[in-house]
C-alpha cells in the first residue's frame, strides 16, 4: 500500500505510508465490495484502518481485487493541484487497478510459493538429518549366535519417529537386547534416541541386572529430557547358552513369547525413561526353550490404522505370533498381516520396529552346533511321593553317561527335592497340574529342568537353615529343601514367567567328552 503521487508532478520525495489493515476491519469488507475508487472523506465506518488513512491524509483509495478477493489497495493523497479527483482520473485509476490487481496477485503467489519451497526444503533437509542420525545409530548387523537367530526390522515413517533397537555384546557370551521409542518425531526425537542409546550402552556395560540398567539410564536421562518428551524402552539380557532371558520394561510395548501350546506376554512394570527421577523397574526372567520365539515390537505396528480408522491392535499381533510357522520369518508374517489390514495405499503413520529372538528347535543338525541333546521329557502328577518316581526316571535316563554312584546319589537327591518343591509349593499338590521334567545333555554337563505352574508369584527368600537355631526352637525343623539342592549340584538356575516356574539343575559331567 503505497502513496501514489500524481504522475504529472512528481515531488522530490514521497514517504511511503504503511497501513495495518486487520482482516476483520469493516473497511476491508467495504473495499472488497466497492467496485471502484473510494473517497475516504465520504466514508462513515467505525474502522481503525480508516482512522489511520485519515491521519495519513489519504484522499482516495482504489481497491485491488483479484478473483473476488481484496489483495491490496492503491491509496492516494490529495491532488497536488488541490483539485478534486475528476471522473477521468477515477476511470484511469479503475483501469489501472483492474490491470494491476492480477499482476500483483501473480507476484504474491510467486513469493508465497518461494517461501513454501524454502520451508519444504528445510523440512526435507531435517528429515534427511533425522534419517541419517537414525541409520547411524541402529546396528548394521545382528549378532551371530549358535542355536539362535536374532533378527530385527526397522522402517521409518515418512516423518521419522524415534524408534530404535540395539544389540549389546556383554561378557560370557550374553547379549543385551534393546528396543525403544522416543515420543516426538524428526530431529529432536532422533537426537534423543542417539543420546538414550549411548547412555544405555554405557550403563549396560556396568550392571548385570536389566532393572538396574534402566534405573541408572533413567537417572542420567531425566535432567536433559526436553519437556513433553520421554523414552519407552525395554532392556533384556539373553544368556544364549541356557536360554535364560532377564528383562525389565520402561513402559514399552509388551514382548510376546511363542511356546509350543500358547503365547505368553512378558510383562514387567516400569515408568518410561526421562519422566520421573527415582523410578524403579521390575525385573522378570523367563527360560526360552528350543523352538520358542520372542517378538519385541514398537507401537507403530499395534497402533497402525486401517482405512476405516480401525487400529491393528495387540490381539492381531498375538494372532500372528500364535500361528507363526517355524519355517517362516515372523517379521514378514507380521508385516504381511499389517499390510493386509491397512491396505496398499497406507501412509505409514509411525516408525515400525521389530526384534525377534528365535531359539532354533532341536534337530539332528543342531546337536553338532550346540552340543546339546535332549535325553528325555516327561511329566508326573502332583502327588506327594511322586518325586521318587521322577528320581527313578532320571536315573534311568542318565544311565550310560558314566556318572559315578556318589555323584548319582547327589543328582537323585537334588531331583527329588526340586520335584517335591514343584509338587507342593508350585502346584499345591493339585494332581491335575503336572510337573514337567526335561533332561538335556551338553558336552560337559547335564541339565534337569523341573517346571511347575507356580509362575507369577514372587519366590520368597528362604532363610538358610541353621541346625543350632532349629534345636533352640528358633527355626522350624523343616526348610532343608533348597539348601540340599544347592549343595548337591554345580548350579541351580531359577526362572519363571506368568504361569510357570522352572528350576534347572546344572550338573557337571567332568572330563572331556
Amino acid at each position, binding site marked *: 500500500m503505497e502513496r501514489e503521487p500524481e504522475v504529472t508532478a512528481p515531488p522530490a520525495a514521497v514517504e511511503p505510508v504503511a497501513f495495518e489493515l486487520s482482516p476483520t476491519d469493516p473497511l476491508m469488507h467495504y473495499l472488497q465490495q466497492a467496485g471502484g475508487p473510494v473517497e475516504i472523506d465520504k466514508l462513515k465506518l467505525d474502522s481503525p484502518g480508516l482512522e489511520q488513512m485519515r491521519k495519513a491524509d489519504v484522499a482516495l483509495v482504489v481497491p485491488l481485487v483479484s478473483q473476488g478477493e481484496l489483495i491490496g489497495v492503491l491509496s492516494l493523497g490529495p491532488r497536488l493541484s488541490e483539485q478534486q479527483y475528476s471522473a477521468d482520473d477515477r476511470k484511469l485509476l479503475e483501469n489501472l487497478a483492474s490491470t494491476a490487481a492480477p499482476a500483483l496477485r501473480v507476484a504474491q503467489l510467486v513469493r508465497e510459493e518461494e517461501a513454501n519451497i524454502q520451508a519444504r526444503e528445510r523440512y526435507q533437509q531435517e528429515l534427511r538429518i533425522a534419517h541419517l542420525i537414525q541409520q547411524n545409530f541402529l546396528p548394521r548387523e545382528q549378532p551371530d549366535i549358535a542355536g539362535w537367530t536374532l533378527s530385527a526390522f526397522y522402517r521409518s515413517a515418512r516423518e521419522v519417529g524415534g524408534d530404535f533397537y540395539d544389540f549389546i555384546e556383554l561378557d560370557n557370551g550374553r547379549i543385551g537386547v534393546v528396543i525403544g521409542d522416543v515420543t516426538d518425531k524428526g530431529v529432536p526425537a532422533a537426537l534423543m534416541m542417539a543420546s538414550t542409546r549411548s547412555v544405555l550402552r554405557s550403563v549396560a556395560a556396568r550392571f548385570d541386572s536389566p532393572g538396574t540398567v534402566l534405573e541408572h539410564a533413567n537417572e542420567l536421562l531425566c535432567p536433559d529430557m526436553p519437556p513433553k518428551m520421554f523414552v519407552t524402552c525395554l532392556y533384556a539380557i539373553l544368556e544364549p547358552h541356557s536360554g535364560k532371558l532377564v528383562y525389565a520394561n520402561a513402559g514399552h510395548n509388551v514382548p510376546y513369547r511363542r511356546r509350543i501350546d500358547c503365547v505368553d506376554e512378558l510383562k514387567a512394570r516400569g515408568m518410561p525413561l526421562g519422566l520421573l527421577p527415582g523410578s524403579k523397574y521390575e525385573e522378570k526372567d523367563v527360560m526360552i526353550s528350543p523352538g520358542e520365539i520372542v517378538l519385541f515390537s514398537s507401537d507403530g505396528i499395534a497402533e497402525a490404522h486401517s482405512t476405516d480408522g480401525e487400529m491393528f491392535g495387540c490381539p492381531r499381533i498375538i494372532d500372528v505370533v500364535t500361528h507363526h510357522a517355524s519355517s517362516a520369518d515372523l517379521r514378514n508374517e507380521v508385516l504381511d498381516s499389517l499390510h493386509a489390514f491397512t491396505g496398499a495405499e497406507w501412509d505409514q503413520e509411525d516408525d515400525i520396529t521389530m526384534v525377534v529372538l528365535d531359539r532354533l528347535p532341536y534337530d539332528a543338525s543342531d546337536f553338532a552346533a550346540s552340543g546339546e541333546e535332549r535325553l528325555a521329557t516327561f511329566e508326573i502328577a502332583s502327588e*506327594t511321593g511322586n518325586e521318587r518316581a521322577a528320581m527313578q526316571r532320571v536315573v534311568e535316563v542318565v544311565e550310560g553317561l558314566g556318572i559315578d554312584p556318589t555323584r548319582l546319589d547327589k543328582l537323585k*537327591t537334588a531331583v*527329588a527335592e526340586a520335584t517335591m518343591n514343584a509338587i507342593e509349593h508350585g502346584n499345591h499338590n493339585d494332581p491335575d497340574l503336572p510337573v514337567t521334567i526335561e533332561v538335556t545333555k551338553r558336552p560337559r554337563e547335564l541339565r534337569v529342568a523341573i517346571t511347575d505352574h507356580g509362575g507369577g508369584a514372587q519366590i520368597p527368600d528362604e532363610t538358610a537353615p541353621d541346625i*543350632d537355631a*532349629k*534345636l533352640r526352637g528358633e527355626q522350624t525343623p523343616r526348610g*532343608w529343601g533348597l539348601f540340599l539342592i544347592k549343595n548337591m549340584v554345580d548350579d541351580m538356575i531359577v526362572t519363571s514367567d506368568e504361569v510357570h516356574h522352572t528350576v534347572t539343575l546344572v550338573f557337571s559331567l567332568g572330563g572331556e567328552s
Partner: protein
Amino acid sequence: MPNALTLDVRQPGSSTAVLDVQGDITADSEKPLMEAYAEAGSAKAIVLNFSGLEYMNSGGIGLLVTLLVRANRAKQKLLAFGLTEHYRQIFELTRIDEAIEIFGSEDEALQAASK
C-alpha cells in the same frame, strides 16, 4: 515307589535302645518314627540304625530334627550308624552330625552309648 517306614525297637542294654530303620524317611514318616521313639521310653541313649534306609528327603531330615529336639529336652543322647556315604555327607552338610554322633558299626555306636 515309596517304601513305608517301619522301625524295630531293640533294647540291647538297660539304658540303650536301638531303632532299626527300614524303608523311607520322609515327611510322612512322623507316626512310625515317633511311636518307635515312645517305645524306646526312658532309654538314656537312642541309637538309630540306618542300614535299612532306602531314601530320605528334606522332609525326613526335618523329622529327625524334631526327634533331636525332643531327645535333647529329655536329656537323651542320639547316635547313628549304618549310613551310606551319601546320607553321611548330608548329615555333615546340615551339621546334624554335630548333634547325632555317627559311627561306622553298631558295636562302635553301642560302646559310645554306654559311656
